[in-house]
């Protein structure tokens, strides 16, 4: 029985609670993710995939319920601790990338390394290594704003991977890539999994259907977990 790395118990998330625009984004979600597995999160647009990822990756707190990540109950931590936790353990690829538009690709990828006691040479080496891996090394000096969607996506992936996180959380990581690049990214993911990482992907990209990388699929609809075949 593989060990659980992430566990959610009866998690709900309600936006704007008690106001007129109250939105129940997630309702009573319980799930477990095994260490060193690759898990797919499926569901139609607006079903709550991104919301669930932000909860599991300590970006927001649940309205109710408990989230255990790496054996720690992170559901009600103050921001300072969540930030440190994310920085140490998680690599996050956002659906909308969240790149810093005015910085170069190099700087964008190097951002997570800033708090670490690394020399400029070490940082350069790491950035070059990781950008070669996702094939964006020919654009390192470009401003992030001038890149195509697919290129931005690869920068976002590089940034998430640069700290060698234990858990990789990817929100639609292949949405802007052509099928050749998509399968290359999936090769990278497979490689990471072989190196012991846990990978959590939200997507509706059919490329991932039945992909050998995936160990488990969670299907989410209207904020609730449903049996696999619904998606």
């Amino acid at each position, binding site marked *: 029985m593989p060990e659980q790395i992430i566990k959610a118990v009866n998690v709900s998330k309600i936006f*704007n*609670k008690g106001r007129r625009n109250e939105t129940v984004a997630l309702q009573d979600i319980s799930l477990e993710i095994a260490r060193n597995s690759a898990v797919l999160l499926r569901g139609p647009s607006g079903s709550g995939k991104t919301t669930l990822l932000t909860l599991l990756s300590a970006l*927001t*707190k*649940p*309205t*109710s319920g408990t989230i255990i990540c790496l054996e720690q109950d992170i559901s*009600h*931590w*103050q*921001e*300072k*601790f969540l930030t440190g936790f994310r920085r140490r353990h998680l690599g996050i690829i956002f659906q909308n990338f969240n790149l810093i538009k005015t910085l170069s690709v190099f700087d964008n990828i190097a951002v997570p390394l800033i708090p670490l006691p690394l020399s400029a040479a070490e940082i350069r080496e790491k950035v070059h290594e990781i950008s070669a891996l996702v094939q964006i090394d020919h654009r390192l000096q470009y401003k992030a704003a001038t890149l195509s969607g697919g290129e931005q996506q690869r920068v976002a992936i590089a940034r998430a991977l640069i700290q060698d996180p234990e858990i990789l959380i990817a929100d639609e990581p292949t949405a802007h890539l052509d099928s050749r690049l998509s399968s290359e990214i999936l090769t990278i993911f497979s490689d990471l999994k072989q190196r012991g990482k846990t990978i959590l992907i939200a997507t509706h990209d059919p490329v991932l259907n039945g992909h050998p990388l995936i160990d488990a699929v969670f299907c989410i609809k209207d904020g609730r977990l449903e049996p696999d075949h619904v998606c």
Partner: protein
Amino acid sequence: MFADLWIISLFILYGACGFLLLWALPAGIKIIRNWDFTSSTEGQLLLERKNYFVSALLQYALFFQIILLLFFLQLANVHLPGLIKGAMCAAGTLGVNAYGYTALYVKIAAVFIYLSFLFINYLDQSETNAPLTPQKYYLLFVAVLVFGFDLYVTVLYFAGIKPDIIAACCSVNFDINSAGIISAQTATQYLKPAMAIFYGLGLLIPFLMIRLRGRIIYLLVFLSAIFVYADMIALKYHFVKFIYGMPSHNCLFDIFWSEYYFAGYLIFGTLAAYLAGVLFLTLLKMVQVKHLAKKPFLERKLKWIATVGLIGHLLILNLYWLYWII
């Protein structure tokens, strides 16, 4: 009086302190009213960030408050004696009216209040769930009140200084009980018991500190209060003589002068370290009951600071005495 450059500088320091406090205050009120740690709304997130911001503000406020205290001391000790006839040091200048000593004591109290807030804040921030927020913000209100009172008393003090007044000072033989901690006559009478308490508690407290557990800390607070009182008498009517090398100069303030190698800063600095140690240990004990995980390392460190402070304090005073005897 208020056109004096030193006094203007002092009020600039008040400006800095007051500015920081008044900046922190609305945030504190908002946090007390709206804090809901279980929610993760935009508003709550903002409050959590404000929480960090306020502690940064108060760190600076503490810095300015300490400068303010030292500057006030220097002002009363070095600058004002040139303006007030008969005064030679702060004992004379602070005693010219009823507000001088109060102004000094309030400034000392203010430093300890900021220290309390920052220490509780430190404990609060060391736990993932910020267990002492928003309660810790009540101390911010206390700080603001004390700040206001301090400013008020200090203004009254300066306003009450008449240039033609003749102040009494330490070595003068007549009684200064309106100004000093205790009058000269009673002091000599109480010197013997005070010395006994000074040495008795000076030995007992480090011993208690080593075996500190449970509620002994509250006993320690009580004993510390007695110790400080006895310490002041012993210092004023016994030890300072050996610092000055004069038998009748019972002054607590000249020891801050450069002539005496700023010994006063060392003597009161070590005492302050001891008191801060006891204060922090007490606060730790008070909040630990409900909210905090045990912090044995921190506790040990604080015990060390307090003990080293106290022993240093005792040592410095006795070395002066010993030096004179030998």
